[in-house]
């Protein structure tokens, strides 16, 4: 073997050794020295972090009919810094989406800009027909409300599908749940699919809600309310139907309302649930509670004769006030049945400051605590702020403001023979565990029931009677306080009633506010009592309580 051959062999051997060394050195650099860098780089390429929001839960009514459910809405967007047909897009936006066109000037160098969210069918068609590839469509979750009448309770979600008001707002966390975050291991070709999934943050599933509201009944009641409001050209009205056995609110509606599926044209004033947010001095309906207080305190007996002075106008302690029907010396029961202000004021004077305690006892001046925002607790004028006239005003429903739900809840004490129930809007498992508290004696309640039945059969509320059914109720006509004085032409007409048939009983509370026909000759007996009768009929047919 000559030297040249040996040298060549050595050189080739050395060359390969060098190559192997280079490879191993590189491996050492990659695997050991720069391992963190490369493993991070690999992770970035293979791992994708994903956050998934659970679908917003459905809201059901008491009969498991969905009243708020999910739907997909379409939104249009562009990538302003990557526009291919910039002029065409601008022209299109200027013509059909002028607001987006104006915004585009400030978004010229941005990556993303919404043209419009929650597109209408017409707008979707316009975009499709434009054939502009720069305008892209994105699917976004939103809500659909199949029964518009229930929207006053459910509320709506905003553009980001978060509750704006109503149940959607109060229970936003429960309905939306919380997102789950995960890391998916993928490669360039795996598309939708992944090799491995690692959950980094476990979310909470959204949970549906069952309302006590019966959506069909709500619709029927609202329909009747609407007809009566149209008949009297009234400005506002509300209806509450309550099951006094368990406090379930079966219907709570108010008008003017709104279309929950037309998010863009919401009139915020109309989204107010007037049955809880608006409080008024309801007038004579409050006499029922004064009568219960007087009988409970023993300041008067049901058959005790009260001198109503046989006049429509009188003075007590120097303060003059009027009543609708003049009565002479009549039993207390008749004072309530005929809604005599003079007789009630005289009884109220005997009650003194206790009238205030009893109003609080019935739940006035306190929130009912149903899970809805915007409840107005109303006001009962406390004795330390009383004028000498206050006991007169409080005896027939002034200097006390209440919302309609408070009235219905207070009336449930009568329907329940003196037991108080808490109004409920959500069906929960703890319903059965509550023990109702007795706050008035059954004897007093029986006497009041008889008075209320007579009020319907032969008193001021004859038009509320439903043939073949036991109806107990009281009408009210309150003068609205406008700019510090009571208007004689602007009134609120109310009716509070209980309809019974064997074990079946329901409370219906109604008010109608302000009609151009308002004045001396229009009373709750002509506006609210007939509406009670109509709603009661619908209710009985709906609940199949046929005689």
């Amino acid at each position, binding site marked *: 073997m000559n030297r040249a051959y040996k040298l060549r062999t050595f050189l080739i051997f050395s060359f390969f050794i060098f190559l192997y060394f280079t490879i191993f050195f590189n491996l050492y650099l990659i695997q050991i020295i720069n391992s963190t860098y490369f493993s991070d780089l690999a992770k970035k390429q293979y791992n994708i972090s994903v956050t998934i929001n659970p679908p917003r839960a459905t809201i059901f009514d008491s009969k498991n009919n*969905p009243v708020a*459910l999910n739907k997909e809405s379409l939104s249009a967007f562009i990538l302003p810094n990557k526009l291919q047909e910039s002029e065409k897009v601008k022209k299109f936006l200027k013509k059909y989406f002028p607001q987006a066109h104006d915004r585009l000037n400030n978004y010229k160098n941005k990556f993303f800009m919404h043209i419009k969210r929650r597109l209408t069918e017409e707008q979707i068609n316009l975009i499709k027909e434009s054939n502009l590839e720069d305008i892209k469509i994105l699917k976004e979750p939103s809500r*659909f409300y199949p029964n*518009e009448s229930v929207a006053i309770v459910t509320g709506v979600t905003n553009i980001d599908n978060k509750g704006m008001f109503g149940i959607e707002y109060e229970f936003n966390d429960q309905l939306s749940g919380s997102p789950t975050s995960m890391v998916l291991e993928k490669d360039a070709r795996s598309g939708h699919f992944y090799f491995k999934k690692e959950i980094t943050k476990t979310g909470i599933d959204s949970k549906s809600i069952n309302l006590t509201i019966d959506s*069909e009944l709500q*619709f029927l009641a609202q*329909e009747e309310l609407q007809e009566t409001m149209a008949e009297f050209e009234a400005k506002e009205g509300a209806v509450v139907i309550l099951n006094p056995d368990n406090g379930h609110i079966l219907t709570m509606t108010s008008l003017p309302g709104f279309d929950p599926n037309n998010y863009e044209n919401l009139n915020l004033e109309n989204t107010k649930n007037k049955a809880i947010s608006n409080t008024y001095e309801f007038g004579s309906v409050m006499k029922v509670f004064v009568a219960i207080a007087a009988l409970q305190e023993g300041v008067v007996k049901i058959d005790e004769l009260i001198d109503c002075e046989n006049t429509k106008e009188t003075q007590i302690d120097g303060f003059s006030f009027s009543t609708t029907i003049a009565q002479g010396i009549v039993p207390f029961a008749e004072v309530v049945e005929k809604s005599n202000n003079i007789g009630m004021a005289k009884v109220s004077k005997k009650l003194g400051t206790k009238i205030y305690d009893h109003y609080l006892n019935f739940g006035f001046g306190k929130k009912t605590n149903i899970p809805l925002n915007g409840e107005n607790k109303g006001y009962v004028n406390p004795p330390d702020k009383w004028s000498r006239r206050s006991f007169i005003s409080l005896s027939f429903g002034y200097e006390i403001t209440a919302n309609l739900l408070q009235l219905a809840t207070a009336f449930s004490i009568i329907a329940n023979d003196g037991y108080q129930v808490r109004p409920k809007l959500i069906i929960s498992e703890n319903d059965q565990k509550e023990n109702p508290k007795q706050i008035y004696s059954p004897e007093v309640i029986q006497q009041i029931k008889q008075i209320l039945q007579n009020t319907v059969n032969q008193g001021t509320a004859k038009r509320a009677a439903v*043939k073949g059914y036991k109806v107990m109720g009281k009408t009210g006509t309150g003068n609205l306080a406008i700019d510090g004085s009571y208007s004689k032409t602007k009134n609120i007409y109310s009716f509070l009633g209980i309809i019974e048939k064997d074990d079946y009983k329901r409370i219906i509370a109604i008010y109608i506010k302000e009609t151009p026909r308002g004045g001396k000759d229009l009373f709750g007996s002509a506006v609210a009592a007939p509406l009670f009768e109509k709603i009661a*009929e619908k209710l009985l*047919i709906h609940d199949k309580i046929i005689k």
Partner: protein
Amino acid sequence: MKISKSKLFYSFIFVNIVFIFLQIYKQSIFIKYTYQNQKLILRKEQLIQNKNELTQQLLILKNPTSIKNYAIKKLKMEKIKLNQIKKLT
């Protein structure tokens, strides 16, 4: 019986190779079923979406206002009164 060291060595190598292949097989089966599972999840999501769309369409058709309008205007139906209903026992 005496087993030679070389036989033991080759057997060890062979068993290891078999295990490696089994591991690869297991992994491929796992990925296959993971894919199937993901396909089913996607299908489920699609079906839920279809169901939601159909429910929505059904609820639009069941809208009480449109039913009432249809009954009154098209079918000339009238509101029923309580005294028109009789209970048959």
